[in-house]
């Protein structure tokens, strides 16, 4: 009978435990080589990390600094454009050419004068007289309207910028204008075909 110590596994274990195998090649030099490679690899990773950080900062500096400079130059250009044409053209052309624009936007002080004049003239007179007086007003508006296409959009823009007039329309209607429009509804309707500015004057 074989004992536990004599069985095959035990004998195999004994043989493997007791033996020593000499390497067929110089393993130590290969171990040293691998260690150096790992060291150099880790060193290279640090170098790459440092380089990437520097690159990131560089790119960030370039990307964030240049647009701000460009923005500044653009602002100065705009400012120059504003300053140059504003005193010459706006002062002259606002009075001449851009009257319809202001009339259209209910921002011209002269428009108010016109409406008040008309109302002043209308109120004391009779219906026939009113019609006669409206016609001149219509003529005056017609005088304004043909000038609209002559105005260049650039000029309008320049004038709007230079004079700093708010582009938004007023939402409310002048009570006197409203009264005038109600009283002369039929006359206004007749003038619709000729694109009279009086429609805009009344506002919506």
């Amino acid at each position, binding site marked *: *009978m*074989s004992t536990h110590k*004599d*069985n*095959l*596994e035990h*004998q*195999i*274990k004994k*043989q*493997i*435990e007791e*033996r*020593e*195998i*000499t*390497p*067929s*090649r110089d*393993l*130590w030099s*290969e*171990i*040293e080589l*691998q*260690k150096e490679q*790992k060291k150099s690899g880790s060193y290279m990773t640090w170098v790459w990390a440092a380089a990437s950080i520097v690159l990131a900062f560089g790119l960030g500096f370039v990307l964030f600094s240049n647009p701000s400079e460009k923005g500044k130059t653009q602002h100065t250009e705009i400012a120059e454009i504003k300053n140059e044409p504003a005193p010459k053209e706006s002062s002259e052309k606002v009075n001449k050419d851009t009257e319809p624009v202001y009339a259209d936007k209910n921002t011209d002080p002269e428009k108010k004068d016109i409406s008040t004049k008309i109302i002043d003239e209308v109120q004391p007179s009779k219906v026939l007289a009113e019609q006669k007086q409206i016609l001149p007003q219509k003529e005056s508006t017609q005088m304004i309207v043909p000038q609209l296409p002559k105005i260049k959009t650039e000029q309008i823009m320049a004038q709007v910028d230079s004079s700093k007039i708010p582009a938004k329309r007023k939402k409310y209607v002048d009570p006197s204008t409203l009264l005038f429009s109600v009283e002369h509804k039929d006359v206004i309707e007749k003038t619709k075909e000729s694109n009279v500015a009086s429609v805009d004057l009344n506002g919506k």
Partner: protein
Amino acid sequence: MKILFGNKKEDLLSRLKKQDPAAQKIFYEQNVKKFLSVGKSYITDLYQAEDCIIKAFCKIFKHIESFRGDGNLEGWARRIVVNECLNFIKSHKTVFYIDDINSSFLVEVQDDEITVDFDAQELLNQLPDAYRMVFNLYVLEGYSHQEISDTLQISLAVSKTQLFRAKEKLRVLYLQQQKTKRNEHAQR
């Protein structure tokens, strides 16, 4: 002598933890032959076993800080060698674990007389990878079936059947080896 030996070991460990190349060389010289023997019991090809030993030594030196010092340094390093060999087999070979044996048949058969004159490595070389891994872990490394199942990511039952089959196969191989030896001896 024990105190002197212990101090030397402690010195070597502290020097290894400081990544001292001279200490690493000493540790290598002390253990390379033993570790290569262990590696050879898992990987039949010597060149591939040597490659695994190189990788294992690099890992030992790199992760020496994780060795707590409460156990045996050689034992800790040997486990790294074994793991490296197992990883090599897993990554380079397809290992089949056949689990078709009823556990009721897992009754150990006592060997007859075992002569000392036999080549254990030759027997191990003829075992399939799955048998050899389980047998080596259980018999040579002293792993339990639970540890083997965790290490090789197999079930306990598979671990047991692989060991049983490995022993059976080894016995057959041993008998064959003895038979051929007897024949050779008779021819002389």
